[in-house]
């Protein structure tokens, strides 16, 4: 279809995206502000970045966060993929409704409630809170997101592919490894990325699950911005935003190229 923007649509899109992106742009811009004042431009400077990378507390928190995110999103991806496979393929079993309920509940559960529940669990079983308990908590709530992403891929998965693998001599496990997994791999990877991002971002659950011995980056950010704007945080935000932006843009360029290539292939195939 050859459509063009109408006046109304162009205006609403411009205003809408300005609303979404202006605050971030301002944040990024003022991370280079030499002045400590919120809205007064004191000239270009990278001093907040320099201060940031010399701030040991931030570096420690970043390291904790990274460790938590890598471990929990990886375990969550394994568990979440298993859970998706169980939901989509294992047929009926005792307590299936409870199982699917437990998969979907964390998606709509307020963070404060989940955090409280985790904390009370860790205390009642006498587990010392620290980086390990944050990992457990993050694994639990992110595995549900992984499971939703993977099962939405499995829904559209042609089951006869798995049957064909069995028919050609695969054991069920071999069929999963050599046919199902390679095909759903993109969904598993996006599940991992989602879990990773959620773990990086989480403030509330980590605050409950972490003891005095562990501080994650969001916890550190939260405690330093509670009292007001902090240029060091602006610098940190800018770094994080740039990483995400580069990641998302290159991912979308990559999929765009994949789609274009697939389309070209299909046209070639149709020509014979």
């Amino acid at each position, binding site marked *: 279809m050859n459509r063009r923007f109408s006046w109304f649509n162009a205006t609403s899109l411009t205003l809408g995206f300005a609303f979404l992106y202006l605050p971030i742009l301002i944040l990024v811009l003022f991370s280079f502000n030499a002045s400590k004042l919120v809205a007064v431009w004191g000239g270009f400077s990278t001093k907040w970045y320099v201060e940031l990378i010399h701030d040991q507390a931030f570096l420690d928190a970043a390291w904790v966060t990274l460790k938590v995110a890598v471990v929990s999103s990886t375990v969550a991806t394994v568990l979440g993929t298993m859970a998706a496979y169980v939901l989509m393929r294992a047929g009926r079993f005792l307590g299936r409704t409870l199982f699917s309920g437990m998969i979907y509940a964390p998606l709509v559960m307020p963070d404060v409630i989940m955090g409280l529940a985790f904390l009370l669990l860790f205390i009642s079983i006498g587990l010392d809170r620290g980086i390990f308990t944050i990992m457990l908590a993050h694994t639990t709530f992110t595995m549900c997101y992984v499971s939703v992403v993977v099962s939405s891929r499995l829904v559209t998965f*042609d089951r*006869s*592919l798995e*049957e*064909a*693998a*069995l*028919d*050609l*001599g*695969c*054991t069920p496990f*071999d069929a999963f490894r050599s*046919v199902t997994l*390679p*095909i759903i791999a993109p969904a598993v990877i996006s599940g991992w990325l989602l879990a990773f991002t959620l773990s990086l971002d989480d403030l509330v659950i980590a605050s409950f699950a972490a003891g005095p011995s562990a501080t994650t980056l969001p916890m550190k950010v939260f405690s330093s911005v509670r009292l007001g704007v902090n240029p060091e945080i602006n610098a940190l935000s800018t770094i994080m935003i740039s990483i995400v932006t580069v990641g998302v843009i290159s991912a979308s360029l990559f999929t765009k190229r994949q789609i274009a290539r*697939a389309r070209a*292939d*299909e046209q*070639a*195939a*149709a020509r*014979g």
Partner: protein
Amino acid sequence: MAQPANRPVFAPWDDPKEKPLIRFQNVTKKFGEFTAIDDITLDIFQREFFALLGPSGCGKTTLMRMLAGFETPSKGQILLDGVDQAPIPPNRRATNMMFQSYALFPHLSVWDNIAFGLRRSDMAKDQIPPRVEEMLRLTRLERFAKRKPHQISGGQRQRVALARSLAKAPKLLLLDEPLGALDKKLRQETQFELMDIQETTGTTFVIVTHDQEEAMTVASRVAVMDLGKMIQVDTPDRIYEMPNSVYVADFIGDVNIIEGAVRGQDGEKAQIVWAEGQPPINATTAAPVSAGQKVHFAIRPEKVAIATEKPEGRANVIAGKVHDIAYLGNISTYKVEVAGGKMVKAQVANERRLARRNITWDDEVWLSFTDTAGVVLLN
């Protein structure tokens, strides 16, 4: 399948000494309350091209999936070479299946798709490449070995699926609507290709289809199914010429079905009264019938002749008026209204060109057929 005259007729089902490759023994399959397969007993022989034909939901796919091992019978046994298949999982069965969707692995090349099953068999590693090459040659896919499934056309994908399922040289190949995704012209070409491949490899084929023309073309025997039951299992010509029920007569090809009552029987000759004031239909039936018995008389339109003048010396002659004409190029079908408002179709080959034909709408015409042209179906 048409048989060359000098070859012995292939009809193992008529030979009592022949052992079946597959035997269904009183097989029933239920899904909850729903009975998909209802007490079926059936033999399929080596080298047969056996077609399961029926409307969707008749149980033909379930029957095939039980052969592949994806479903297990609720009751009864399925024997392959005399061995009960129930405890054998799909990956250990000597059967292979060609899926309706082809189920080609999108992440593997054509070559790897064909080699997939071989790599999971006890075939020696160095035997695999020659076998794959052989299958590529058989299906004329040599040029496409390195392509991925989405890089080839629909017809080529169909041949990859066939090559993949044949590569392990199964005792039995199952084909689930193998030509359903192809357009008509390609489908017809591929039917003959399938028959050739079946003959070269000597594999037993069981094909599921809802397309009666396809079943008639490729199969040595056709099983017509409905509501989980086998209605008739026979060679294509017998299915067409000697249907055993109104259902089969109606399902295969075009047919006129005339309801009537038997007036009398003399040897194989019977008279059927079908409308008041009309002479009875003279028909042939081997089955004994009694006077007054309700029957259906089925006759194919191409066995009914149509003329403007009353023909002499025909066993059955019926008067009527042309109601409709369908011109199909090679043939024309006349829909003729006869006594009691009944419609009877007569089919005529168009041997002459348009201007020379003399029957048109509302003409008074005479329909005629011999006493062996139709079948008497008991209810």
